[in-house]
């Protein structure tokens, strides 16, 4: 309350109790005659005073920055991700490529020390390099899935929402994908085509886009019959342009949210797939390190801890950041 009073005193027009000529002159520095005369009217000025300084993206950004936990996590994540490049550069390691790792009988399961900063694995390979390399790999592949899923999902979702004829087909596809555990399809694909991470990425995209699409479709329903779209139709704007210019821009926050959430989801899926043996062991990924650590962490916790901490950092970051962003992007929260 104190603070408010202070602000009042500072901000508001001084209350003029004395409206005698002297009083007025004291405050305004102008004579009575001057004060009580008409001034010229400027219509442009009137037009201008209404501007709101509100800018959507600026507010989004400002609100996002307010979510300290998300921002901190994001900064930490970025630092970690950038560091992962340093970590596997010659500055920190003697290895230049994953295939150059060496086993060392004496270093098996070594706990972290000055030679092996993250310790070593079951055959004495440097865990530091593996973890950081896998981090990059996983993040990049998760990003591919995120982007792929969203790109496909958005395109399909826009069509689904806008072209009424397609609704039935898309709904059926949705039911088909939704009502059967994805793992069935994933396993079949793994058996039929292979289980390299790329294949798994593509199949994850194939089975996840529909959720984004459904999300987008619901939003399209929300915006489709808004007056500005009717206006565009009156103006003869083509469907593609309407989707691109009128609808898509409104989806950006959702799109970013989906992308952000796709990353923890993909990494989670990666661990599950690895656990089920549906991931090729030749390609390093955090999921694989985690699943391998399952056997060993009881005796050598560092095998679990390092990848688990990094995985958690990544997933929590994107989860938080995604949600923080979507909160921030909601105009209702621009308070």
């Amino acid at each position, binding site marked *: 309350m104190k603070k408010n009073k202070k602000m009042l005193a500072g901000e508001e027009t001084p209350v003029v109790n004395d409206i005698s000529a002297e009083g007025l002159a004291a405050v305004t520095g102008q004579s009575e005659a001057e004060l009580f005369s*008409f001034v010229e009217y400027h219509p442009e000025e009137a037009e201008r005073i209404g501007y709101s300084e509100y800018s959507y993206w600026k507010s989004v950004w400002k609100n996002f920055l307010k979510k300290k936990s998300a921002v901190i996590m994001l900064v930490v994540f970025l630092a970690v991700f950038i560091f992962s490049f340093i970590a596997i550069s010659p500055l920190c390691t003697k290895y230049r490529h994953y295939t150059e790792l060496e086993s060392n009988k004496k270093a098996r399961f070594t706990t972290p020390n000055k030679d092996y900063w993250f310790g070593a694995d079951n055959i004495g390979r440097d865990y530091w390099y593996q973890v950081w390399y896998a981090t990059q790999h996983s993040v990049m592949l998760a990003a591919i899935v995120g982007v792929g899923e969203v790109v496909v999902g958005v395109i399909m979702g826009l069509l689904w929402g806008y072209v009424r004829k397609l609704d039935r087909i898309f709904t059926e596809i949705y039911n088909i994908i939704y009502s059967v555990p994805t793992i069935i399809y994933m396993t079949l694909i793994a058996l039929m085509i292979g289980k390299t991470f790329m294949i798994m990425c593509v199949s994850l995209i194939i089975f996840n886009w529909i959720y984004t699409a459904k999300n987008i479709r619901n939003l399209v329903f929300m915006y489709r019959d808004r007056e500005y779209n009717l206006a565009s139709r009156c103006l003869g704007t083509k469907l593609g342009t309407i989707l691109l210019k009128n609808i898509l821009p409104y989806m950006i926050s959702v799109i970013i949210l989906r992308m952000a959430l796709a990353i923890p989801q993909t990494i989670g899926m990666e661990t599950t797939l690895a656990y089920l043996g549906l991931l090729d062991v030749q390609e390093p990924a955090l999921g694989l390190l985690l699943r391998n650590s399952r056997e060993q962490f009881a005796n050598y916790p560092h095998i679990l801890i390092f990848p688990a901490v990094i995985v958690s950092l990544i997933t929590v970051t994107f989860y938080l950041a995604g949600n923080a962003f979507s909160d921030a992007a909601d105009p209702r929260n621009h308070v």
Partner: protein
Amino acid sequence: MEKQERNVILSAKDVFVQFSLRGDRLTAIRGCSLDLYEGETLAIVGESGSGKSVFTKTFLGMLDANGSITGGSIMFEGEDISKLKTEKEWRKIRGGKISMVMQDPMTSLNPLKRIGAQVEESIKLHQGLSGAEAKKEAIRMLDIVGIPDPERRYNQYPHEFSGGMRQRVVIAIAVACHPRILICDEPTTALDVTIQAQILDLIRRLQEQFGMTIIYITHDLGVVANVAERVAVMYAGQIVEIGTAEDVFYNAWHPYSWALLSALPQLGIKGEKLPTIDGTPPNLFNKITGDAFAPRNKQALAIDFKLEPPFFNVSETHMAKTWYLDPRAPKIEQPTSIKQLSERMNMDYGDTLKHPHEDPNRVPVITVKDLNVTFGAGRKKFVAVDKVNFEIYKGETFALVGESGSGKTTIGRAITRINPATEGEIFFKGEKISGKISKEMDQKVVRGIQMIFQDPLASLNERAKVSYIISEGIRNLKMYSTDEEREEMVQAALKEVGLLPEFASRFPHEFSGGQRQRIGIARALIMKPEFIVADEPISALDVSIRAQVLNLLNELKTTHGLTYLFIAHDLSVVRFISDRIAVIYKGKIVELAEAEELFRHPVHPYTRALLSAIPNPDPAIERKKKLLVYDPTQHDYSVDQPIWSEILPGHFVLGNERELSDYRSRL
């Protein structure tokens, strides 16, 4: 002056309310004072953003979480309620002492609880009744607020009620608390005109029955004239003028009050410009120096920009916060429109205007023949437009008036080809434009017929720059050769609607409602159309801004030789702007006539009901007027089918033979 003897029931002094918004502080109420007398009806009028709602919410401690009272006091029953903090303290006030009816009846009821239980909740809380007694009382309350068959309705859910009925329930809930003060926050804005009148009636009745003090919050001067004993005008977080209804309507002194009143389309003279208030209300984030209205005031004094005026008494009951009343101020006359308010309101133009139907050379721009628009299929089938016929002639403004859901918008959209016509035909300059048409024809329609939309917030793409929005149509039809040319066209269109060229590079959210509506008009205009469907272009706008838009539309009509289909739900607005008026009810046009003819000789009972329900911003008339209620069951069409017939030249009405002869006899 009997009011003086009344007790002050609530007294607000110098109330300040601030909100923290996007990291900034917004001062929504800037030192507002008000004495409320017991048993009176006070109306607080103002545009959106004037702080009228926020101010009254402070009486209930219902400010949003980011807002707080930062100064002043509100004395109620010997206690400064502005200092109350906890829910518990406030609960002593809420409901039982002060209660409130909110604007939107569709959202104010819990959709998952039975009506009865919701009313009962109030009764149990505040009347100490329980069980069967409470139920009895709840049913009684439902009966009192005019819900037919209250015992059955008691067990129903909100979605089974229409908007008007829901508002009655909300009122029942508020009144069942037996409050001393009832705040009605735009209680009728969301309702149709005919329902609105009934609700106002109801509240008045309840006030007498329960002896409540009522605060109305509204932007509609018609409502004010209807209900209020005293009127407070708010602008930019301050009450700028307060007095009895007569004081404010007939003898206003604040320039803003003047502007507000004179901008009413009802007061306009056909063919003349309405007086307008340019610009928009100030941004409350900024520091306001002097009189907040000064920048928009065409006759501002220098001191208005420097110092905030104090209240000057006009009479014992009437105060205004303007330097005009300072004896040192130059002499200023009240505008003529204010002085002649009552004459203007009831002016009959009938004889002075020419009758378009007498013009033999008139050409139809749009011809609608047996138009039928149906949505859905099977059981969900809904006939929105049912066999509608009319012609719109070149250069005229044809108004289509009806309640929500009457199908008026659907007709507009059928003409612009947004909704396809199910049956019937539509012609544009003699060429058929309904059904499947060629690509060239389609382009012709796009060019020739444009639309202006109701909601300036929803009708502009928020994520596109103004230049793109305006040029969208010409881009589609490639109506320019170079980008520079396109930009020039955009600039020209902006200028034409009175906006600054620099606006082209901005985004819609930076503009006020009126400005946005003008952007919408520019967007249509740039296509050089011949015919414009204006779908309630002013109903979502504040009073002060309506005039700007109406003037603009009228001006463009002459400069561009436009023809309008003007869709509205409010007959009073339409009278000013339109040449001919069609009244539509549930998909059928029931009466069509030249504007003045319709006002003079309304024959169809629905038209008559509509006319009687128009809130008239003249307290003298408004208080005396008698409300007609339209009951569609009064028509007996079981034997004799209604036909569309011309009972006078240019005056059509829907009715069967018996009704028609009755109508004729009334002329």
